[in-house]
């Protein structure tokens, strides 16, 4: 698929065909990023499908996905490139034994053969006919220093290795950054990106997502699950469940051959939705206080939304 020929609607359609339901606004942002060659910064609560966007897009474009998972202490040698020191040492030792020419060895051990490529270099050097999708996941986990470094790479798409020279991207990768907002991303980086906030889905959208992912699910069960999720997200939980939890829960219920939701099966599977003991307790008390009207959700999932 020629990415340049995609329209906003086509992107939305293509993502949908890969079981990723997205708003038009997200499709617009993706479309713009393809045409403007700008990175996209996706933010949103955990489990709303930030990472998935990039993965699915790579599938749609039939191109490689290069993922850089950020973590604290991530630095240039793990993100960009590193010399393969053991191999270099070995070569030197071998040459010593064989009495090789020192000058040649010195130049030869600093060639691509001795280079360990890390995700960013890989994305830039990619030789495929189509640009790869570069996913820089959870950028907020990396530290400020890394952000500054990223800035340089993302603005020019070139990397300078002193011993080899400057490597320039043949085609710019499609870059997606995701953040859970555990800290503020620096303005300079934000400015270079298109921004999109992924909201928790509406009832209709979530229902569609469940039905697309698990077509075998009973419609009533799907509606009940989604209605429950919508209500729970309004409430005060330590960790509000995302779409990922909805899907987990739905698949658990399918595996248990449930046709509709009842209190018993809900209790058994609540571990899919809440991952904190306090939240489970809180849920119990909300149900006991009738703030969360389970009967209504079970009986009339559509109605309970209003």
């Amino acid at each position, binding site marked *: 698929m020629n990415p340049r020929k995609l329209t906003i609607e086509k992107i939305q359609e293509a993502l949908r065909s890969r079981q990723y339901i997205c708003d038009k606004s997200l499709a617009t942002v993706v479309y713009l990023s393809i045409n403007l060659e700008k990175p996209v910064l996706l933010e949103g609560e955990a489990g709303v499908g930030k990472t998935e966007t990039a993965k699915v897009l790579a599938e749609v474009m039939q191109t490689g996905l290069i993922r850089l998972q950020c973590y604290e202490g991530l630095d240039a040698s793990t993100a960009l490139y590193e010399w393969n020191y053991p191999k270099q040492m070995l070569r030197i030792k071998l040459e010593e034994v064989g009495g090789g020419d020192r000058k040649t060895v010195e130049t030869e051990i600093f060639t691509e053969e001795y280079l360990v490529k890390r995700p960013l270099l890989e994305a830039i050097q990619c030789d495929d006919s189509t640009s790869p999708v570069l996913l820089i996941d959870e950028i907020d986990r990396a530290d400020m220093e890394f952000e500054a470094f990223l800035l340089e790479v993302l603005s020019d798409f070139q990397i300078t290795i002193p011993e080899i020279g400057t490597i320039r991207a043949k085609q710019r990768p499609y870059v997606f950054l995701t953040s*859970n907002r555990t800290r503020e991303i620096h303005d300079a980086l934000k400015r270079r990106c298109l921004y999109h906030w992924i909201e928790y889905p509406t009832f209709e959208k979530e229902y569609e997502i469940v039905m697309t992912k698990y077509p075998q699910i009973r419609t009533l069960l799907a509606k009940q699950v989604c209605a429950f999720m919508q209500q729970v997200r309004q409430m*005060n939980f330590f960790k509000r469940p995302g779409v990922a939890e909805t899907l987990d829960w739905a698949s658990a219920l399918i595996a248990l051959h449930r046709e509709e939701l009842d209190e018993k099966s809900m209790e058994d599977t609540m571990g899919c939705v809440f991952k904190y003991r306090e939240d489970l307790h809180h849920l119990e008390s909300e149900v006991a206080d009738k703030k969360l009207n389970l009967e209504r959700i079970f009986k009339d999932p559509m109605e309970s939304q209003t």
Partner: protein
Amino acid sequence: MTTQPSDQEIISAVKRLSSVRGQGILANLLAFGRVLKDLGLRVGLSQVIDASRSLEFVDVTRREDFYSVLLSNLIHEKEGVSLFDRVFDCFWKDCTPDEGPMEIIEMSMPASEESHEESDSPGGSLEEVVPQATSQEEDLTQDGDLFFLPTYSPYELLNEKNFSEMGIEESRAISRAILLIATKIATQMSRRKKRASKGDEIDPRWTMRKNIKFGGEIIELVSRKRRIKKTRIVLLCDVSGSMDCYSRFLIQFMYGLQNELRSVETFVFSTSLTRITHLIRTKDIGNALERVSSSVLGWSGGTNIGRSLHTFNREFSPSLVTHRTVIVLFSDGWDRGDVALMEREMRNLKRRCHKIIWLNPLLDSEHYQPLCKGMQAALPYLDFFLSVHNVHSLVALGRTIQRIVA
């Protein structure tokens, strides 16, 4: 919850810039960017230019697409979206191709030369250059002593306060004391290592790298050590009526801390919570204080710590508080809200953060005991419960913390 400008403010901001609007999308976009900037959103010229470039790729007659394009280019945080929506509706409402934004143009003043210049030179900055007149120096002499004895002034009963008369000396004294404290509570070892001449371990990679010039024989050793990492501080300040007499000191404290350290988030609360980080992130204290006093409603109101903490935990905690965040609560603990709620929220907060420090200005008086229920509920979750009411106590606080941390 950040304070949002009223509809009236938005309309007047749009009107103010209507003179800069003109024919063509770029001029209008520039004006739109200026309106957003005037209303407190961080919008730069480069973003406006990017937005106009982006518009080439979509059908601008479709409002929905037009909106998405502007939003994704101009706004870079979730908090800005709702304000953007309102400004967007107000600014682009009459832009049908035939009529143009007539309504607004009619009401506007004749275009001044200055504004034309700005709109005509896209190479310039969106920023207005307004010389900031500060009256700080004049107040230097009279305010010097006042600070050390927190005094009551009838003006402080007003909801909108005049904080501009701040002495430079006291400001510096506070900054120094705060810097000392801040660096103490805010330093932690990083997992990231750096090369160092006196490190505690050998860096094998760099050792090899350096010794390749000797043919691989290890001659020079390179060592490394852990870096020191600055912690994030979240400051929650009580600005209710009972804290009135400390408000000047308080604002200094907030300002000082915010500007000495990079990662400080500042909130004020009385019955509700307001984020003011963006209001005091500036080098110009006179203006910062003005902005704060004008935008925080409910200043000197009642206290509901529980509810404010609840808002904080729900809205801000997930993104701001991590295992290395130090929460600094500045309050006298006179809470009129639900004690159970407060306890629960304190517990939640404690679970997320590194340390909670409660600064209580009353603690220093001899007869004070944390008797009121709210304070008692909070006590088990505090790492430090310290007194602070003037520069002396701040310096003492610095020493205490130094001792604890060292």
